[in-house]
Structure formats: structure tokens, C-alpha cells
């Protein structure tokens, strides 16, 4: 994959984030295809919220040198109105090195979501149910554990 394609992949995520803001909670019904490279670059450069040098939210991310682009999306979740801040970090070569989704809401549901990675990034990268993936040969993942481990861990949990 070329850098441009890479850029388009991640900007695809960003584009989806913007679509999310327009479609409210219906955004989960359809994923936006990856944006064409030229559009992608325009999207990045035309965004008015370029904030110059990045200040990474966490310690020492060297990936985060260059420009930070942020946008905020609001949508209605089962727990009520939620606001999610999207941040993309672009390096000097124009390659996007980070994409992040950060819930800003204060209602109880949102607070719980802030501890759960899957729900947070779900707004930016939709993912697919493994059951719906028919063309892949295998799934790369954290290794399945044996019955022994799972059996004992359940037992240990009940003892706590």
C-alpha cells in the first residue's frame, strides 16, 4: 500500500466520523467507503481546525509530531446525547500517524464507555462481525485459551 492509500484509509475513518455527525445514530447502518485519495487530501487540508503543532494527549508519542486535526461529532446514543472528539495526527510527510475517538459526554453511559475501548473507537472504526466475513481465511487475534485456563479462571473468580 502506498502512503497515499494509507492516508486515504485513515481519512476514510475521519470521513466516517464526519458522516456520523450528520446522520446521528443512523450512522451505524452504513459504513462510508474509503475516500478517494485526492478527496482525502482535500478533506485534511480544507479542515479549518488545524491546530498546528500537536500536543499529544498522552506521554511521549513520537508519532504525534506534525499537525493535529480535530473535529467534534454529536450523536444520540441509547444513553442520551453524546459528544465525541475525533483527533487525527499527520506527520510532516502528510502521513496520518494517529486517529483517535474520545467521548466527551458526561452522562453515566458515556462514562462507562470511556473505560471500554471497543465502544469508544467503534464510532470511528466500525468493524465487522466476524460471522459476516466470508472471504477471510483466518482471524489474527489474541490466542484462544485452553479449557484449563478458562475453567480455572472462572473458578478463581468465584472464589474472590
Amino acid at each position, binding site marked *: 500500500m502506498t502512503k497515499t492509500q494509507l492516508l486515504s484509509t485513515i481519512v476514510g475513518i475521519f470521513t466516517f466520523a464526519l458522516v456520523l455527525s450528520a446522520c446521528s445514530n443512523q450512522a451505524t447502518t452504513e459504513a462510508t467507503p474509503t475516500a478517494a485519495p485526492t478527496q482525502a487530501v482535500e478533506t485534511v487540508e480544507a479542515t479549518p481546525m488545524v491546530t498546528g503543532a500537536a500536543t499529544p494527549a*498522552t506521554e511521549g508519542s*513520537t508519532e504525534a509530531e506534525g499537525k493535529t486535526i480535530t473535529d467534534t461529532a454529536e450523536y444520540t446514543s441509547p444513553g442520551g446525547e453524546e459528544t465525541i472528539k475525533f483527533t487525527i495526527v499527520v506527520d510532516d510527510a502528510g502521513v496520518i500517524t494517529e486517529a483517535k475517538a474520545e467521548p466527551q459526554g458526561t452522562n453515566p453511559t458515556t462514562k462507562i464507555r470511556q473505560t471500554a475501548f471497543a465502544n469508544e473507537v467503534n464510532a470511528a472504526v466500525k*468493524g465487522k462481525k*466476524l460471522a459476516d466475513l466470508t472471504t*477471510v481465511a483466518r*482471524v489474527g*487475534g489474541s*490466542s*484462544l485459551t*485452553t479449557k484449563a485456563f478458562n475453567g480455572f479462571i472462572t473458578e478463581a473468580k468465584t472464589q474472590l
Partner: protein
Amino acid sequence: MHQFSFEAMGTVWAVLIDSDKVDPTLNDEIVRISNTFEQEFSRFIESSQTNQFRNSPAGTYTVSPQFAELLQFAQDLKQESSGLFDPAIGQLIEKAGYNKEYTFKPENNIEDWEVPVWSIDGDQLTLSRGMIFDVGGYGKGFWIDQLSEFLFEKKYPYHLVDGGGDMFGTSTREGAAWKIAIEWPGRPDYAIGQVELKNGALTVSDTFKRRWQNWHHVINPLTKQPVQTIIGCAVQAKTAVVADGLTTALMLSESSRWKTIAQRYHATYLMFTADSKIVMSPDWKGTFFN
């Protein structure tokens, strides 16, 4: 397409072979040699080579060529990761509760435990004291590569070897890449994206499985604590041992070190941080489902 699965090294393995005919004894032979490898290197098996120095005094010992190879890889990665990747933490993991009795009860004096010092030169292993090696993560990658070589020797060049979600693949007969989905960390029924694997390896690890109390299996030997800032990692590399070793090394390392370590091994990565960022190396090849 010939495909079969078996259990070994605490997980489920799958071998895919793109060939019209496969020798009916092949499956059994793969299971047999895999079991032998497990017997030799599992921390859970008392007579294994990784356990043989449990009560040894300081000194220099001769090890088997295979063990020497495993330790040489680890020594190199240990150096590149400033000591954070270190298979010498076998005792620490046991003390934390992940032992063959599955106590899952961390001991109180874990902070006092010190990483034993070791070095390998050829087949000569020097130890500062008795110790247990844990090759759990990257040993699986090592064996994935060995099985791939075995399949080449048996004249099955078009294959994919999957060791519980870590894998190495050549290509299909038509020369096509193997399409592999990447599991969403902490959400095993979901894929975050996919990669095309051709003559390369993909490994994925997260901190959601193999978890007990407030511990999980990615443990920092210097702080004696499980990693808290990273929740998952995916690595692509030329071999499974490199990819597997790097998932552990990167999860243990500061983000400022990721790029350097990965480049040293010509690997690419996705890091999933606890504050919900996905950090990718600029040359990561793959797509996200968005």
C-alpha cells in the same frame, strides 16, 4: 484446500494447505512434532528445557541447538528493548499466579523479585542463578516458522500456519495472498480490519485474555507489573518469531521506542492504547472496516 486443526501449547492451531492431494499421515506427523516441541519448551512441563535450570547454581551450561536459537533471538530483542523483553521472567509469572497449579493468587513479595541475569554465546548459556525461562509468546511464533519449513520440505509450498491467532502464510497456488481479519482487542466476535498475508507473518495480542485479578500475561520485568497503557498490538513481519517477539516487546516499550524497534526488525505495527488511540506505523499495510 486441505485444512485441519489441533490443540497444542495451550491454544488451537490450524494448518491450511493449498494442494490437490495431501499425504494422509501429514496431520498426525504435524501433531506429533508439535507435541514434542511443547514437551521440550513449555514452562508447564517439569522436564522441559525451559525448566531445567530452575534450581541450578550460577554457571555456564550447554543447551540444545534449538534452545540456543530461541535464546539468541531473545537476547537480541532484549537488548533492543532495553531489557523489557526478557524470557527470564518465568518465576515472576509463577509468583503472579499463572502457574501450573493455576493458583491465580499473586504472592505478596513480588516487588522484591529480581530478574536473573543470563547470556547465550553459541550453545553456551551463562546464568546468574537458578531460573525459569518463559518462551510462551515468541516460542509459538518460532514453532509456526518451523512448521512452515516442515511443509516446504514435504513439498507443500502453498500454506498458512495459524498458531492460535498468530500466523505465517506463503500464498495460495494462484499466488494470491491469504486474507486475514484482525480481531478487535477485547471484542472477539468483531474484526477491526484485515490484512493480506503473502510470505509473511501476522501476530496479534491483547491484554483481555489470559487475565486474572488485576493481572494479565504481558508483564514488565522491571516494574513487575502488567502493562496498563496498551491494550492490544498487531505486528506484521517476515517471520512469525519476529512478529510474536515484537508484539510483546512493543507492548512493554514506551511509544517513543516503537518505530525504532520495529524498523530494526523490518516490522510494522498497530498499537491499541488504553486511552483509545490506534497508533500505526506509517508503513502498515492493511485496511480498516469503517
